[in-house]
């Protein structure tokens, strides 16, 4: 797919206007998974605004983001970094064969402490 088209799609799906960002970094200041991320929440907003989607598509952060939405909650400008991450993730996992988790392998990951909710959201996040 055309890169520009992809950027447009991500912007649309995230429903967020990256131009509203005033680059304060509060999202990254709040992010609980910050240290696990190669591309930081505020950078997602910045990259998508600049149209540089390749960095995002290949980012590890897509899978380390907890989707806790703290960044969205805290943003003083009404920008939603988590939505951008989510939209980029959709771009990746929607491609055939890009499912990040196989159902058969789930039983071996389960232990008693894993809440049901987590499993459900894991499927939602990592699979088509």
């Amino acid at each position, binding site marked *: 797919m055309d890169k520009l088209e992809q950027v447009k799609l991500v912007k649309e799906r995230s429903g967020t206007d990256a131009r509203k960002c005033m680059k304060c970094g509060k999202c990254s*200041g709040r*992010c609980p998974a910050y240290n696990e991320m190669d591309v930081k929440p505020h950078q997602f907003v910045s990259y998508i605004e600049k149209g540089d989607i390749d960095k995002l598509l290949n980012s590890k952060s897509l899978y380390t983001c907890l989707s806790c939405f703290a960044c969205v909650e805290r943003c003083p*400008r009404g920008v939603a970094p988590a939505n951008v991450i989510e939209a980029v993730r959709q771009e990746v996992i929607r491609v055939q064969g890009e499912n990040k988790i196989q159902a058969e392998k789930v039983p071996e990951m389960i232990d008693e402490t894993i809440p049901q909710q987590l499993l459900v959201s894991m499927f939602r996040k990592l699979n088509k």
Partner: protein
Amino acid sequence: MQRIGVFVCWCGSNIASTVDVKKVAEVLKAEPGVVISENYQYMCSENGQALIRNAIKEHSLTGIVVCSCSPRMHEATFRRTAESAGLNPYMVEIANIREQCSWIHKDMEEATEKAIILGRSAIAKLKLNAPLTSGESAVVKRALVIGGGIAGIQSALDIAEAGFEVDIVETSPTIGGNMAKLDKTFPTLDCAACILTPKMVDCAQNEKIDILTYSEVESVKGFVGNFKVQIRKKARFVDEKKCTGCGECMQKCPSKKGLNDFNMGLNTRPAIYIPFAQAIPNVAVIDPEQCLKLKNGKCGLCAMKCNVNAIDYTQKDEIIEREYGAIVVATGYKPISLENFNEYGYSQYKDVVTSLELERLMNAAGPSEGHLVRPSDHKEPKVITFIQCVGSRDTSGCGKPYCSKICCMYTAKHAMLIREKYPDTEVHVFYIDVRTPGKNYDEFFRRAVEQYGVDYVKGMVGKVYEENGKLMVQGADLINNEQVVIPSDLVVLAAAIEPSPTVRKIATMVTASIDTNNFLTEAHAKLRPVESPTAGIFLSGVCQGPKDIPETVSQASACAAKVIGLLAKDKLKCNASVAHSDETLCSGCSVCANVCPYGAITYVDKEFRLGGGKTELRRVASVNPAVCQGCGACTVTCPSGAMDLKGFTTGQIMAEVDAICKR
């Protein structure tokens, strides 16, 4: 037959780039009644005005239409131009082809067509214009200043200096406002009290100034030059004339648990108190909510102790009625409530404070007598972290969308003062941008970094939490691209400021307009920055928008200059656009008086000739042109159409409608 001149302005390229001004001039020239139609680059310039003046004389014009910017911008200019050429100033109509045409449309053809229609509409209206003359009304030579902070004080002093009487109405028991609470001021670091208290004393001693503290404006009636104001002087239970401010009563008062507002609630005060040592007036006041005598009748110690018998538990609120020629609104600001910012833990942790609280903590007259200690355990903090933009520039709905303007500078000041007084204290500042426009401002900020070693971190704080007795400040360091956690002893929040909550009520009373952030709107951002659109109402200080002290003082003086200019006049020209009743149509039914907000309409019995030598006595409405402000409410409520509004007559508006609707 009318002889109309049309003058189309290019406004440089502002109009000409989207409107074909030459075509507009040409098409309008063909309109019946138009004898000359010109276009020029800047009609408002001296050359442009000369062009109009010459045309008026040369072509014996009876009226002119200027197609230009908004009438709110230059209607007055062109009216003066017309007047100087011997034309009645009300024979001028403006077609707004800039703000309402060239600036909002991109397509040249479309914009040109619209400009022509707007021009036609103005011509249609002008054809029904009649020369108007304004009446006159006397000016009461006294000003009211609402608010006794530095803005109000400065305005009052300047007005009094010019020889006019001024009343300051202040809700709290003393004047001084927020500035009285400050320790030092940027960028010079002189002590706030040292520069403010002499001005307060000047006010108290100035014969022309009457200070009404612990008072509120109750109602405002009237109009420019003739406001009638009711002021509620709240009962302070202490006779102001007798009290010497000795403070004996404060010592004896057994009810000492009241939060000290002046110290931002950081300590307590007795039920009878003087807000601070240099308070003006230096007179005690009793908090009726807290006073045992007033609450349950048991006590009366202060009265017993008072040597001058100043205590009066029976005092009642008093309503004072005064007349003024001008009103200055100087209601100031307060920091916003931080309840929407739980991430910073303001309500959870005692050692998270606002900047204004820090001012009191550092102030020699403050609760810790100038020793910087943290509120929780009164120990000296070793690591202090400042967080900027708390609630400012916030469009999420939690805070305010605007920049509070003063925070960058006062935080630099705080950081600097701390580093100077306590050099072993670590100071961090989380910032989004550091905004320092102003004389010597950036130099000041750089000193904090370069000379005092304050650590500025570009990034915002995500959360503040407690761990091992420390306040952990977690934020982004965008320059180093890392998340940092700074264990701190004291966290200082630069809370956004907002207009004082009283301003809405006051704005409604004086009919001044207010913006979405509750700041009062100035008549024009550049041309009339210290006036409200409502004649006779002036704006001083932060009520108009965030300002620091130097700016506030200069605006207050500017405001005073405007007031002086008004009060210096003996008579004011009234609004010429006033209602007028056609007595041949009026049946005296009184509905118009019911809707007049100014009480400008009265009824008289008048004799009318019926023909054949007969007469008839009929009740008819009569409008006082000095009182009428020209809203037009009466014109619509009058079923017979007897009431009309000069300058905006029914005929004129209908002619505009017709012209606009011609396709």
